[in-house]
């Protein structure tokens, strides 16, 4: 058997990290007893690749002025963010078990108390504007950091998203990259049934964005998309990532029910067994 190339080895490592992040998400939600597993699992690969291969950041200096910014606009998927931050070393892993508990810095939706979180979120539709503000600040200060914003597919039903989309093109925010976790489910059901968002790609193109469509669980495609986004000039980029809600746990996959419900004790054990493989 031919030896793996360095890149293949690196992809394997990223995939292993993503598996570990998924395990942490299930453990956290199982202990917390409430929260949003579906969207956390569907965007795990996007955010793992971002933090472990793309983002310029320093867990020992969360407020570093030149750091790349990441903002989770779909704040309900914070179990993913918390798992990634603790794995990067922003705070000890045992803190994860305080999720949603009174006095914890791991609130039910992102909060500035968490090391590595610089802007709270949770009320949907506002995070692309936050990223726009960060992008404009970089330009004013002549800093070369990049800004990444994770959006949900149900979230782009919010009008504020399109106000921000219009302005990011107007102000030529080429340091801004949005990632759309297109898993097709929202709380009330399938996105196409609740409120159709298609055609998604032409919508963003008509708002002046560079669009990249990928399989959001394919690490080489994810890394390639982030690299392509970095090369785009004069306009912002959105990576439209086709994903599977609940990805990685068979009985959570494409199950609308797991948008906003934590697994029971039995489900948690079953899910962990699957992920540990």
């Amino acid at each position, binding site marked *: 058997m031919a030896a793996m190339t360095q890149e293949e080895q690196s992809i394997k490592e990223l995939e292993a990290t993503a598996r570990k992040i998924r395990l942490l998400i299930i453990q956290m939600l199982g202990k917390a007893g409430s929260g949003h597993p579906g969207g956390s699992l569907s965007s795990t690969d996007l955010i793992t690749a971002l933090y472990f291969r793309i983002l310029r950041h320093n867990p020992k200096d969360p407020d570093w*002025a030149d750091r790349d910014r990441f*903002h989770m606009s779909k704040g309900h998927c914070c179990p993913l963010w918390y798992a990634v931050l603790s794995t990067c070393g922003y705070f000890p892993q045992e803190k994860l078990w305080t999720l949603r508990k009174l006095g914890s810095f791991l609130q039910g939706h992102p909060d*500035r108390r968490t090391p590595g979180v*610089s*802007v*709270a*979120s*949770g*009320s949907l*539709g*506002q*995070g692309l*504007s*936050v*990223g*726009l*503000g*960060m*992008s*404009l*600040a*970089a330009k*004013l*200060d002549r800093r070369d950091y990049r800004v990444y914003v994770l959006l949900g597919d149900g979230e782009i039903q919010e*009008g*504020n998203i399109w*106000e*921000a989309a*219009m*302005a990011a093109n107007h*102000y030529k925010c080429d340091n801004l990259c949005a990632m759309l976790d297109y898993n097709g489910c929202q709380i009330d059901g399938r996105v196409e049934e609740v409120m159709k968002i298609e055609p998604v790609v032409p919508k963003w193109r008509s708002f002046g964005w560079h669009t990249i469509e990928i399989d959001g669980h394919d690490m080489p495609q994810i890394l390639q998309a982030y690299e392509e986004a970095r090369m785009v000039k004069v306009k912002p980029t959105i990576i439209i990532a086709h994903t599977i809600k609940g990805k990685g746990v068979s009985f959570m996959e494409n199950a609308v029910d797991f948008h906003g419900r934590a697994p029971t004790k039995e489900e948690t054990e079953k899910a962990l067994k699957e992920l540990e493989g």
Partner: protein
Amino acid sequence: MAEALYQRDIYGQALVELGKQDENIVVLDADLSGSTRTSVFAREFPHRFFNFGVAEQNMMATAAGLASCGKTVFASTFAMFASGRAWDQVRNTVSYNNFNVKIVATHAGVTVGPDGASHQANEDIALMRIIPTMHIIVPCDGPQTREAIMASVKVPGPFYIRLGRSKVPTIEQKGAFEFGKAQILIEGKDVAIIACGIMVQEALTAAKNLLQKGIKAAVVNVHTIKPLDEQAIISVAKQVKGLVVCEEHSIMGGLACGVEEAVSSACPIPISRIGIKNRFGQSGEPAELLKEYQLTSADIENAAVHVYQAPHP
């Protein structure tokens, strides 16, 4: 007659002054920069001014993003849209994060005039008061507008500064402005008239007329609605027989509400509220509207006589 100034002219000038002192000052508007006078800053510092078009929600959330990177952000539009249209953005993304976003809202209250109810924000103070980290200033005239703007950059966190559309007469001899401290403009031991914004001038006129009726009315300018100078208000309340609280705003949720919350346990006395009584506005000239909504010095006078003569426990 004292000079009359547009508060928003003073705001535009103050922004330029601040812009010269501090590179981190950034100004945002939502297609009303000519009316709010942020256009004055835009001419001087075009690269630090961002117009978002008719999109107030985006303006407020973007202000938060800029502030998260160390900018002091002034965001302006009409009071109706700043407080109402973008309330969630102001609550969740600006204020919950306790960011340095200074919202300067113009065209507040019924004196917007002919534009009518859709543009007359009579609820904005209430909407902003209930947000935990928010600071609120309602300056009474032109010079105090400058002082409010300057104070807002010295105190960290979000501000809501409420300005009117019309020219307002300058009130002489107010004493020094101190953020968070009420100004006692006239001492009086019979009743106290507590006012903010354009109602301060009406209160002074009422006090003068009351004196002719033998009633000595104190006049207190409460420019800082939040944090409220409860100590000064309670101390005034303890010296008089009743209070009249005046604001060009709904009688619900605004200054009167704050005053009642402060005095109801410390020193319960009769309080009359001069303000908009559970109504929407309508088109008309500012003076006509003040009369229609019972916001004139004559209305204050009547209320003062009433609380003065009210039976006391």
